[in-house]
């Protein structure tokens, strides 16, 4: 995990609701040295939170003025409402905003509220709306568009993408240091920016030797990455038909996205009443009523005729088991939803590359926002993704005139250990930096970091330098 940078004051943050998302957030934000207060109605939850985390835990209803005042809503910088009920979250944000909280975030998940989001932001004082299910669906859709990768993040409005993939026995990369492969890699506008081997994370240099079962992260222009996967012999086309098990909210969001991508969808759901609703919501999808964990159902609906398989039931265990079955049947792309961290790593060791966790996607979204709030003066952070099981972060900054060492060639710069300047985007041109490249004002820079929580672009330099170019 990334140790927090030393700071005198963190932000005052209130989290209402200590459920899955609330707890994860409390855990991560407290680790980054913020002052957290967690409000929950349940006695048990409150005790669990105060026992396990270094936070204040208040038992009370987050929509009441008294509970919010007790939690210090008047002085708080941020309130995150993450209870199970959308409406409670809204009222909570509204109340807190009126009490004087600077910024509020509400978790709103009901697809029917989707069209009202603008009103909520304007009239209810909600600064940001997070929808874990929708974000997860987007993530899955991105993976389906490019099935070669185990995970994908995009920067600079899609101009740069970061993809993870697992090295297999027999890939041309295996066993040779990267500098020996320069002829194959150099001409592509891409970079291998991180490698995960077992529990270690390595920022590769020219002497790094990839081994089978490493997970490598490649960053660069989408076209270059396509080219790379072609060279690797791992290129697969965009999925044209997808088989989804589980008809929850993620599936609905996903189906809507896939419909726009003209991807055929088969959806298996157990509950008949839910099936009717799904069929009503998703006219383009084929809704099948049956138990998705039953092989009979999967086979009779010709599972293998689809290009990709997505497991989105409520139970992590079911998702992983049926995903393993689908992978065993030789399906090109298998994606499983799994909220539990420990299961995810087991799944990866069994060969399921694409395991996604809605909880973590949400946490990353909020973390990005919190870091941005802390650093409102410096260079602007546009994106933050956590990769390789949270062992590394990839961040996008804009270089401002306050950035140090402008115009200095990178080979002359001393960066902190474990930090890589992966990509520079200068007026729409994607540059993979070498020793002679330099930073200029207005550039977008993508940084990959292993050991540091980066708030500002200047944090990457080992020694401060002259400001301005």
């Amino acid at each position: 995990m990334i140790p927090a940078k030393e700071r005198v004051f963190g932000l005052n943050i209130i989290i209402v609701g200590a459920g899955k998302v609330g707890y994860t957030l409390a855990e991560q934000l407290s680790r980054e040295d913020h002052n957290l207060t967690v409000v929950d109605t349940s006695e048990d939850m409150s005790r669990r939170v105060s026992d396990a985390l270094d936070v204040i835990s208040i038992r009370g209803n987050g929509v009441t003025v008294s509970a919010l005042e007790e939690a210090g809503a008047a002085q708080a910088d941020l309130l995150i409402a993450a209870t199970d009920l959308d409406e409670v979250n809204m009222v909570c944000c509204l109340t807190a905003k009126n009490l004087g909280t600077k910024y509020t975030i509400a978790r709103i998940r009901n697809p029917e509220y989707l069209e009202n989001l603008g009103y909520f932001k304007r009239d209810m004082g909600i600064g940001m709306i997070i929808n874990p299910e929708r974000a997860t669906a987007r993530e899955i859709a991105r993976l389906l568009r490019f099935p070669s990768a185990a995970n994908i993040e995009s920067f600079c409005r899609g101009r740069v993408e970061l993809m993870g993939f697992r090295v297999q026995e027999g890939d041309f990369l295996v066993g040779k240091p990267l500098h020996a492969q320069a002829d194959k890699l150099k001409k592509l506008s891409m970079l291998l920016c991180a490698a995960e081997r077992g529990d270690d994370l390595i920022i590769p240099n020219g002497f790094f030797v990839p081994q089978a079962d490493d997970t490598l992260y490649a960053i660069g222009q989408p076209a270059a990455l396509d080219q790379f996967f072609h060279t690797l012999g791992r290129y697969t086309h965009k999925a044209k038909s997808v088989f989804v098990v589980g008809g929850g909210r993620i599936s609905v969001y996903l189906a809507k996205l896939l419909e726009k991508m003209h991807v055929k969808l088969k959806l298996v759901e157990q509950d008949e009443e839910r099936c009717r609703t799904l069929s009503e919501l998703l006219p383009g999808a084929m809704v099948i009523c049956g138990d998705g964990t039953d092989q009979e159902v999967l086979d009779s609906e010709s599972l293998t005729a689809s290009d990709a398989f997505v497991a989105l039931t409520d139970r992590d265990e079911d998702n992983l088991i049926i995903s393993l079955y689908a992978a065993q049947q030789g399906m090109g792309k298998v994606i499983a939803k799994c909220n539990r961290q420990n299961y995810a790593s087991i799944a990866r060791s069994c060969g399921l590359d694409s395991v996604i966790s809605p909880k973590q996607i949400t946490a990353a979204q909020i973390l990005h926002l919190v870091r941005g709030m802390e650093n409102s003066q410096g260079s602007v952070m546009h994106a933050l993704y956590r990769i390789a099981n949270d062992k590394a972060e990839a961040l996008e900054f804009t270089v401002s005139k306050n950035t140090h060492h402008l115009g200095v060639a990178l080979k002359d710069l001393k960066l902190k250990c474990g930090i890589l300047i992966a990509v520079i985007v200068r007026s729409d041109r994607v540059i993979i930096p070498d020793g002679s490249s330099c930073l200029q004002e207005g550039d977008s820079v993508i940084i990959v970091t292993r050991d540091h929580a980066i708030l500002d672009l200047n944090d990457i330099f080992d020694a401060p330098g002259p400001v301005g170019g």
Partner: protein
Amino acid sequence: MNFKLVFNITGRVLMILAATMLPSLAVALYYGESGAPFLYAMLILLAIGFPLSRLPYEKKMFAREGFFTVGLIWLLMGLFGSLPFYFSGCFNSIVDCLFECYSGFTTTGATILTNIEALPRGILFWRAFTHFLGGMGVLVLTTALLPFMGLRAHFLIQAESPGPVFSKLLPRQAQTSKILYGIYVALTAMETLLLRLVGLPWYDSLIHAFSSAGTGGFSNRNASLGAYGNPAAEMIVAVFVLLFSVNFAMYFLLLCGRAKDMLKSDELRFFFALTAIATVLVSINIFPIYQSVWQCFRYGFFQVTSIISTTGLATADYMTWPVFSQVIMMLLLLCGACAGSTGGGIKCARVLLSLKSIVREIRQIIHPRCVSVIKLDGKVVPENTLNSIALFTVSYFLISFLAALVVSLDNFSFATSLSAALTCMSNVGPGLDVVGPSGNFAAFSDLSKTVLSACMVIGRLEIFPILVLFSRRAWRRT
């Protein structure tokens, strides 16, 4: 069954019916004909209607009362509406009078008259005016004119207006009825004016406007609209019968400035697509006969709109056309107009939903566990609506075939017997062979005429209100 209420409403409707004879009486007097047939009929109607409408009643009204009342009233309307025909002495028998009158009210337009032009103008006016009344419905008119305070009048309208689903336009039924009639009268007036402008006499314009407004088909000329040889009039009528076969709720949307919602209607699009395809096919098919694109379109378009709207006016005899065109006509006749319009037939909405059900059924065979709902205009259609549509369609054909069986006793050709039953059931008018556009129903026996009259009423009210009358349970007091 709340009989007092049923009879009370019946009484009021009969009085309204008496009032609707006034324009015909005026026309008769204007042309110097005897007003006696209308005066007698009105006196009888008032004599029966007034005491009935004075009956004290309880305000308990449910769907069964609605269905029962509508069924009863439509039967009585035919009886009393035929009185002017009977008193005029121009008809051969009471059965003929009844047939003509039911054909008028149900907007069928099938006639037993061989020489229409010989009839007095007042009687011909009443004959066309029954189309106008029957098109939108007499009960809709009654609810628009008389206040039914505290009564659930929508049960009446529901039973009378055609289509699988009934849509309330406004919260109050009286307002809805007034708006419906307002649109109806406005469109009819517009058509009359346009017909007058292209050269038809006032009287003829009115008759044909009534005839197309109700999508009926009675004309005051033996050769129907074709007698004028006026292409402009034909096109006007063709366009207006299409307008009258559209769900009137669409015009309401249009008036509210929601034209977008109107264009999204699945049924409307299906209806116009069907009309366009049929017109093209028929026009191509009859090209060898007319040898000119314009003539083919003129006759093809008019005949297609006339049949799909279930009007039945004619400008050309399609019995002289290739069989392919004749079969298309029969298919259009079965399909009919949109729900909530003045047209008849099975209705486009039902046909569309049946087609969708069939597609779903096939899908269900391939994927037995597949769950899918059927939507119309983006809204889910409940399963029981789909079931009743299937039942309706089966009953429709069953009754048609049974009627054809009785008619076949007259020993006309197969096409004649079957098409006569279907055309009466769909409220179109012309069928094939003997009952084709240039023929008429005069040759049938009294039995056949009675059965066909019954078919017309059953078809107009969409079967169940009439069947309720024959249910023993309905006659029990509650």
